[in-house]
């Protein structure tokens, strides 16, 4: 049951010492079912873009995946996935993914994942530990899609846990512990959970440019959105200069959530770095 050797390992370290100050990987290691496609430069900002590929098409019970992304001082990276992460039945035990992220001084990481699809009788545990310099910019988004079931029944998975910790690398202070736990069979009453929706999304953004005005602006946009219900809240904590926001969203379609997350990521890039909108060119 317990697997010592991960099914897939991926480590990437990115600095800003490429030609013309472009960001590039200085260390790259992959093993087993995780790979990356060769880097792309999607615009002239010097930001390097990597796409993760999970070979084998889906995660199975007992699988352990390990990822480590380090973005050194002043470097800029975009990391995305090639396609949805699919979690199949996991009778052998949960699928677990561990991700460690470190973003240095004035560095940027946009980690925009495709949706995670949880199929019938699957259990998925995702642990993401992020350490950030207060001057860094970190953008992470993900979407959870209930997988198809022969009865047409939604929420046939057993359990999804997305556990994310964000810590200040200079003070060691925790600013966010986000512990989303979805267990369809233990749902009680008619409140909370995913309300009347099927898909849930979340976005975490940390950066010096986040203020209460930005949060209010994003909340206005969300309130006016016809197909997404959600909210954005400001994040800060004693003992750290880190500031940011968390957005939780619900919808009936994956695309609505992905488009919204890309829209927000693009808005912030334009405003904070004068950069072109996110264009992942996957579709």
């Amino acid at each position, binding site marked *: 049951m317990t697997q010592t050797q991960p099914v897939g390992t991926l480590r990437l370290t990115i600095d800003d010492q490429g030609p013309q100050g472009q960001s590039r990987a200085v260390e790259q290691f992959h093993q087993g079912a995780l790979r990356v496609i060769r880097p792309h430069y999607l615009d002239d900002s010097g930001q390097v873009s990597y796409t993760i590929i999970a070979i084998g098409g889906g995660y199975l019970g007992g699988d352990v995946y390990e990822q480590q992304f380090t973005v050194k001082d002043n470097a800029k990276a975009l990391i995305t996935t090639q396609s949805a992460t699919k979690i199949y039945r996991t009778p052998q035990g949960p699928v677990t993914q561990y991700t460690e992220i470190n973003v240095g001084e004035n560095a940027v990481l946009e980690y925009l994942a495709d949706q995670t699809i949880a199929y019938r009788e699957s259990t998925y545990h995702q642990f993401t530990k992020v350490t950030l310099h207060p001057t860094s910019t970190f953008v992470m988004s993900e979407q959870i899609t209930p997988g198809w079931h022969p009865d047409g029944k939604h929420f046939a998975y057993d359990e999804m*846990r997305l*556990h994310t*910790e*964000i810590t200040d690398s200079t003070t060691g*202070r*925790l*600013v*966010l*512990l*986000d*512990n*989303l*736990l*979805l267990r369809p069979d233990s749902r*009680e*009453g*008619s*409140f*909370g*959970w*995913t*309300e009347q929706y099927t898909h*849930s999304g*979340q976005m975490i953004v940390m950066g010096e440019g986040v203020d209460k005005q930005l949060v*209010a602006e994003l*909340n*206005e946009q969300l*309130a006016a959105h016809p197909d997404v*219900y*959600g*909210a*954005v*809240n*400001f*994040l800060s*904590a*004693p*003992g750290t200069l880190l500031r940011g926001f*968390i957005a*939780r*969203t*619900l919808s009936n379609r994956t695309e609505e959530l992905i488009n919204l997350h890309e829209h927000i990521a693009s808005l912030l890039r334009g405003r904070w770095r004068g950069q072109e909108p996110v264009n992942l060119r996957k579709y």
Partner: protein
Amino acid sequence: MDLDADFLLLHLSDSALPTGAFAHSFGFETYMDAERITNAEEFQDWLKVLLKVQLTSSDALAMRMFYATPTASELKRLDERLFAGTPAREVREANARMGTRMAEIVAETYSVPLIIEYLELIKNRELSGHPALALALATHSMGIDVDRAIHAHLTATVSSLIQNAVRGIPLGQMAGQRVMFAMREHIGAAVKRSAMLDAIDFCSGDPGLDISQMVHETQRARLFMS
């Protein structure tokens, strides 16, 4: 000695304790605004979910973890994690306010180890304060069993939310009492369930409940601060 323990529990879980609990709905006002909570039955449904999903994995588990390691460093770690583990800003701030008041009250009345240190760390803005931790400091030093301490804290929290619902929705006083009595079994179950949780369950939540608490700050007319 036993009477002293009873007194402490009755005193610190009294809904008249001036912690400011009367000002917080923990998100039920969002559902009131959406007309999803209009009567005692709907309110009770919501309260059960809040208790099971949030209060058990945050407040109750934090108290249990402090009892397991009753040290200053664990107190700091738990305070930090409770604050970081609450995505809704208004709820974070509500707990910080009520936690500070609770710590002040405990420091003023019971001479309890760690409480002065806790209060100083809160005043120096190194920690935020949380009512469950301030209460746990007091109950632990009095030798009160962890289950009874958690039970008292959850009962007090449920009771003040019911009083807020009686004023806010509004509900009849007797309807409020019926909800209170109906919650007895659910509070007991929450105490037991908190003993089965692991450290990894700390502050687990679900998206809908979080959104109801996060969206409250944008609501136009509000009776409550959260």
